[in-house]
């Protein structure tokens, strides 16, 4: 495993959805280092290296954050707002992956400076294409510089 292999932080409260995304990323060899947290508070703790996530080696800074909007404790939008208003985390690409295709949610996400907004498709093939395209674009083509 190379050190510069992309690290993806998956923030998803639904364990089944998390499993699907995890398996697709892993099986299609898009990303190997995928870390999953199931609520907004845990996501912020991870990014700020608080509490259980203090270990840098175990919990490295992600190259990409896949963020669900409906989260227990701290809402996805709130997590997004905190990331984008933080001097250290602002440059971190955040892709919202939500089951909601409501204009309200899309607009709110972009207002909080989301880098992209993706809707989880019900159709499995579309889900696969979406994850592959996401991996190709954000993890292969896209250039990033870790803060």
């Amino acid at each position, binding site marked *: 495993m190379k050190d510069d292999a992309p690290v993806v932080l998956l923030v998803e409260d639904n364990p089944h959805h998390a499993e*699907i995304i995890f398996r697709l990323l892993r099986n299609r060899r898009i990303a190997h280092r995928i870390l999953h947290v199931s609520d907004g508070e845990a996501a912020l703790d991870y990014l700020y290296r608080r509490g259980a996530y203090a270990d840098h080696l175990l919990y490295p800074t992600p190259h990409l954050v896949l963020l669900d909007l409906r989260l227990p404790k701290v809402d996805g939008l709130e997590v997004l707002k905190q990331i984008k208003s933080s001097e250290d985390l602002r440059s971190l690409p955040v892709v919202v992956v939500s089951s909601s295709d409501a204009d309200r949610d899309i607009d709110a996400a972009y207002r909080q400076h989301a880098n992209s907004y993706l809707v989880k498709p019900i159709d499995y093939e579309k889900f696969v294409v979406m994850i592959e395209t996401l991996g190709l674009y954000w993890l292969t083509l896209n250039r990033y510089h870790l803060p």
Partner: protein
Amino acid sequence: MFRTINQRFYTIAGVLVFLFCLNYVQLAYFINEESGIAAQGEDIIDIERNIRNLLSLFFRMRYWERAVFSQEFPDAERHFGQIMAEMKSQLSILRIRSPETFISRDLEEVTKVLVSYEQHFNQLNQLNTDRRLQLTRLESSYQSLAYSILDTGKLNFLKPLLIITQFQIGYVRAHQQTEYQALNVVINSLKNKFAQDKLLNERLESYMDGYRRILEEDFGIDQKFKTVAGHFNDTSAALTELLKSISGRAQELVNDEFLAAEAIRKRLKYSILISSALSVITLLFILMIVARKIISPIRSVVRVIMDINAGKSSSRFEYAGGQKDDIVQLGLIFNDMLDTLEQKNRQLIEYQVELEAKVQELAVRQQERETLIGELEAKNAELERFTYTVSHDLKNPLITIRGFLGFLQEDATAGDAQRMRSDIAHITAATEKMQWLLNDLLELSRIGRLMNPPEEIHFEEIVREAVEMVSGRLNAQKIQVKIAADRHRLHGDRQRLREVFENLLDNAIKYLYSQPAPEIIIGIRSVGGEVIYYVQDNGIGVAPQYQEKIFGLFEKLDPAVEGTGVGLAIVKRIVEIHGGRIWVESKGIGCGSTFCFTLPAKFGAEAKEHS
């Protein structure tokens, strides 16, 4: 008549001018009368003064008359003449000045008497002169006789001579008849003596005769004088009497005139007084008419105007009299105007009141509409949120199912049986989840739609029913439940209220898994007269920032905990439908939580009355 102010004004002005003129005429008449009286009085006084003057002249004349007779003043006769002339001229003036009065008649008499007086005076004066002359002649005759006798030289004749002398002195002094006769006798006796003695000669005889003749003449003159003097005295007495009488009567006349003038003046005074009084009364009458017919109605109108100005809108012009003149008409028109105004004002006020009522009604309606709109908006927002949440949460299991169906196909192709079982398990879980969601949604939608009629519920009883429903899980987790022994009664839908307690218990049980000595307390407390029902646990608690969120639909703090996240949403909805409110009290993680709710006072109050 006199209906207009103009007519009244000119009538009153005319009456006033007439009165004025009348008074002037009267005054002129009075002055004229007065001057006439004064002139007459002056005339009479003048006449009286002239008469007095006449009288005084007369007395002065008498004085000079005596002076003339006494021969003491040489100018006496001239003075007398002057005064006589003056008297005559005065008399003639008087007679001219007072024609045809009693005075003029008297004056005529006086003139006549005066003429006779003058004649007598002249006569007397003549006689007096004659007498003095005669006395002188008698004296010279006596002397001649005496010398003749003495010439005889006979002494016996001396005695008769002496007697003659004596008698002559006596005679001259008094001109008495006795002396006159004595002298005659003496002369005769002397003559006889001379004749006896033959001494009588011619010369002697002529002397004696001469003497006797002179004496006789003298006596005659004297007698005549006396007679005339008697007449003269009578005349002068009469004249005196007459003048005095005239003077007295003139005096009386003056007095009468004075009295008459006084009487006339008095009469004039009374007439003036009466006329003035009449004028004053007429003026007062006019003033009264002016006051009654003009000033009083005007004042009435002014009073009404002032009243209206002061805000007393009910004030009206009042006029008792029957005559409707200009001002009364004005007042009546003013009244009509005020009536119209008041009517309009009343109408306006009515309109205003109506309008205000309408505006108020409109405002109420507007308020109602706004409230309704607010409620509708809230409902709409809630519905939107609900639809959003539901679509989102129903979509999630679908994504799971399709996802794992895809994996299942791949695993089947790869022949990985273990993976296939795991995939199927995931799919089953998702379908179960979906079933719960659908059930919960159905349940939530029933609240408010399907309600049982409200009834009185015993607190402890309903709590025990709820505890019974979850007793299996309570026993499994060895949770202690304490129920406050309160005979308080609730009022509402029995089934739903039991559901509230049941769901709160269920919620508490879910979060008590980590607690070694789990405990739930269900009780009642009263804060400020409000009854608060609570379900308290010593579980993990709720951080302050999530205390509002947990009541939302499909909200779960811990994704690991079973359930759809609908339970607290259902509880909130039931409490709110009963008109109460719900909240959670917790000091944070690890401190346990207390779910509190109220039901409206009327439910509690009614329940207390029954208990």
